[in-house]
């Protein structure tokens, strides 16, 4: 933070406004749509389960929404010896 920022500081309302605008734009677009993360999780789980013995808790799926791009992070913990011969 520079000295200039100190004088520029205008309270937290503009931050609230911007967060809401981004969030609501997303929520309105997806209203009534099935939950994408839940669907991906189920389908990815099914694919992994075909080849690896993993429990539901061994797969972490995280989504980070950005303004122009989103990332989907899939973290699979494969126990040693859990591979199933195809």
């Amino acid at each position, binding site marked *: 933070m520079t000295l200039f920022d100190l004088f520029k*500081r205008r309270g*937290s*309302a503009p931050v*609230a406004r911007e967060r809401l605008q981004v969030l609501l734009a997303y*929520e*309105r677009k997806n209203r009534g749509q099935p939950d994408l993360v839940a669907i991906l999780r189920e389908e990815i789980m099914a694919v992994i389960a075909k080849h690896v013995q993993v429990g539901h808790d061994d797969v972490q799926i995280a989504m980070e929404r950005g303004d122009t791009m989103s990332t989907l992070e899939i973290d699979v913990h494969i126990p040693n010896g859990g591979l199933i011969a195809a």
Partner: protein
Amino acid sequence: MGKVVVVTSGKGGVGKTTSTAALGAALAQTGKRVALVDFDVGLRNLDLIMGAERRVVFDLVNVTQGVAKLSQALIRDKRVDTLFLLPASQTRDKDALTEEGVAEVIGALREKFDYVFCDSPAGIERGAQLAMRHADEAVIVTNPEVSSVRDSDRIIGLLDSRTLKAERGETVNKHVLVTRFDAARAARGEMLSINDVLEILSTPLLGIIPENQGVLRASNVGSPVTLSEPTNAAARAYLDAAKRLEGEDLPVVLPFHRQGLFDRLFGRRAA
């Protein structure tokens, strides 16, 4: 035929019940016949805010189940004789209210009253959807705070899809009522401004109720603030909002904010 007005918000604790009581009483005082219906099954509170908690004999569920007649269950206000209350039931069975039962009661109330206010429970589930089902108008109570605005947006979505009007291809007339507004904090940029809220929700404004100690005083004594302290700033804002609900074209003025020398010098920079 009376108008059905749902008072709703999604989020709890933003002032639905307070606003139902204040707006209903304000309209009843002008001679309109007004019924206030508490839809918060299990957690009734409108009776308490109206000061009628010791007079509840029958409730909404009793009427829908045919245990009591509507005329038996309606409680006439002791202060304004055109104001009536239909309390919620305290049953824990949240399915006690049926779609058909509600339709019948609202239909009967519409015949007898000029305004039927439905005080919605918080949330977006069945109870909230039943409360808005028959609405012609909706008052969306919103605090200038992110979670309240987000929930109001969800509720607006439901009003546009789950109401009878929406299903018939008509629209519920929606109005935003901003409550607990602090003009000084908004001026300093510490609170969402009225324009922020309206722009985000793109819904017209019914009124701005300033944060005011009189509101708690009124609920302490069991009286709508518009009856107990009609000259209070919050009460005046409710009285104006009631006139707008009646269709009067009354400009909304920002609640008065006394700006001291300190505010003027440092207000903008304080965070």
